[in-house]
């Protein structure tokens, strides 16, 4: 099974979607990784699921979205999207800001979500847990701080092309700033409603995450009823990339266990 890129119209926004595989449907919401690439973990997930992995409106190859002002806009957009898939609930996985979007969806409506796998989600702030500044770090430093294994970082740095990739990179960065600059990577109102996340939820974290430190896993676990934490050693923020096999296994096992 493979995922391939296609264009998909949703609520008047032309999305670029990586799509493929067979099985129960899984919506994957990307984080800070290069959003348009068919990463190995997406290929692996497509062995067990019909994977639907869009680039968010206003990001990468998806169309500009002048209506995009905050994280709530993306939550409502994706709730509309999964409703348009039909009455059958689906599995949702999300990394970083994608996990944050999934949580904002879930506090509003969990009836279409069978399971929720969150990989180092953003969305809340906890005092004393020092986060990295993804907007201030130069590109090389940001990549080094995204991985535990620096070989991955060096590979990514070697392919940096600030001018050649400027347009897509800047577009994504502007949309990211729109939703996450201030307050930085969180929604002050989310915490008080996380008890509404009643679908089966797992929280996966890289033990060496320098962007959102692993202490946040426990914060989320305390706020989301019945959730549990999977901590991955020797792993940074881009955990779906750095520990691809482990991430795929965790998502697949959890989703299959809740695929009634």
């Amino acid at each position, binding site marked *: 099974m493979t995922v391939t890129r296609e264009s998909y119209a949703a609520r008047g926004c032309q999305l670029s979607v990586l799509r493929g595989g067979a099985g129960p449907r899984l919506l994957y919401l990307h984080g800070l990784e290069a959003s348009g690439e068919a990463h190995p973990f997406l290929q692996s997930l497509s062995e067990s699921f019909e994977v639907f992995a869009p680039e968010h409106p206003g990001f990468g190859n998806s169309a500009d979205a002048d209506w995009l002002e905050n994280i709530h806009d993306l939550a409502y957009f994706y709730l509309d999207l999964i409703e348009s898939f039909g009455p059958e609930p689906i599995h949702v996985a999300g990394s970083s800001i994608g996990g944050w979007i999934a949580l904002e969806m879930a506090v509003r409506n969990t009836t279409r979500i069978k399971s929720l796998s969150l990989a180092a989600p953003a969305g809340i702030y906890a005092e004393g847990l020092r986060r990295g500044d993804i*907007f*201030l*770090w*130069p590109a090389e430093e940001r990549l080094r701080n995204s991985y535990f294994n620096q070989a991955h970082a060096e590979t990514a740095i070697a392919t940096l092309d*600030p*001018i050649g990739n*400027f*347009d897509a990179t*800047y*577009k994504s*960065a*502007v*949309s*990211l*700033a*729109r939703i996450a*600059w*201030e307050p*930085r990577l969180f929604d002050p109102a989310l915490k008080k409603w996380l008890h509404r996340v009643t679908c089966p939820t797992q929280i996966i974290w890289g033990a060496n995450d320098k962007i959102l430190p692993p202490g946040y896993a426990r914060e989320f676990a305390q706020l989301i009823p019945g959730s549990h934490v999977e901590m991955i050693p020797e792993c940074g923020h881009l955990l779906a990339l750095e520990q691809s096999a482990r991430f795929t296994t965790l998502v697949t096992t959890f989703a299959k266990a809740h695929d009634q």
Partner: protein
Amino acid sequence: MNIMMFHLMPYADLDPREAAKYPNSWVTMPNTLYDPLKGADLYNRYLDELEYAEVLGFDGVCVNEHHETPYGMMPSPTVTASALARRTTKARIAILGNALPLRSHPFTVAEEHAMIDNITRGRLISGFVRGIGAEYHAFGINPATSLERFREAHDIIIKAWTEPGPFEYHGKHYNFEYVNVWPRPYQQPHPPVWIPSQGSRETVEFSAHPSRKYTYLQTFSAIAAVKKNLDLYKQVAQGFGYTHHPRQLGWATPLYVSDTDEQAMAECAPHYDFFRNEFLSKIPLEMVMPPGYASAQSAKGIVTAKMAAHEKIDVRRANELGMMTCGSPKTVAETLIRYQDEIGFGNFLAMMQFGTLPAHLTRRSMELFAAEVMPALRKAAKAKFGEFSFA
């Protein structure tokens, strides 16, 4: 022609050995490097210099806003302008400018500027800016909505000054039930508005629009860029169907005068280099250009230029490029008259202190400029444009 003195009020007592430990002189350089005893002396010295400018015959004094940096100690230029308001009697006081998107409430600018305009009986020049990219890291304000907030705050301030209150205002970023600013500005319909910029088509078009005709100031740029952007203003004005007035064009630049060219260069070199290398250049691209601060096209141009800029610019090269001007009174007068003749700016803003330039050199340069350069520049400009006022 209007000849003004511009001040950045840098923290000139920054310890270079301490500063060298930090990669940035904006946002993240710790404020423990600021010594309030030295800072107090500097504030008072700099205010004295601006007051002295009026005595020497400058038409106005200019202050500006920057945050969390030794580059400039004026997080609120409104405070500086207020301090000058009652200590000057003739000079215009130009706030160049207040960074509108950083304010959570645009009335604060409308009110404070109107107060200064009343206290000075109409000597205020209002300037509006967005602030440089670094201010968005410093203040946490979203750079992706900076331009929208600037335009909206600007519209509210002008409406508050010109339309009878109270009235309602509802926009995307600001909503008010009662726009009714007291006091109203002394100058009617409102103080002149100047727009300082490093140069972008959007800013030039905004300034030159027939509903505004604001003075556009090109700041701290090589003379080729000054000419390019001021020529653009003239073209844009023609496109709007009118011919610009010279008062709509301005240039702000570091300037140093001494007895001879060699002496001028030698005296100001270490201080200018400190300004460039320590205050101006220690700023990464991520601070200059946070996402959304500029349009994709402008941002790409800035990134491309910054990646191509390998040349280290010292004072000699800066002088050649017209990024600063130094020399004997004769050389400086000839240079400025030549630029003025080629470009036709009606406002010239001399930054007479920069970097670590000490008080005695600053004053001597100001005196030589006022006695020997200013009259020649005024005469040449008058022959070309005649006399004109600020508004």
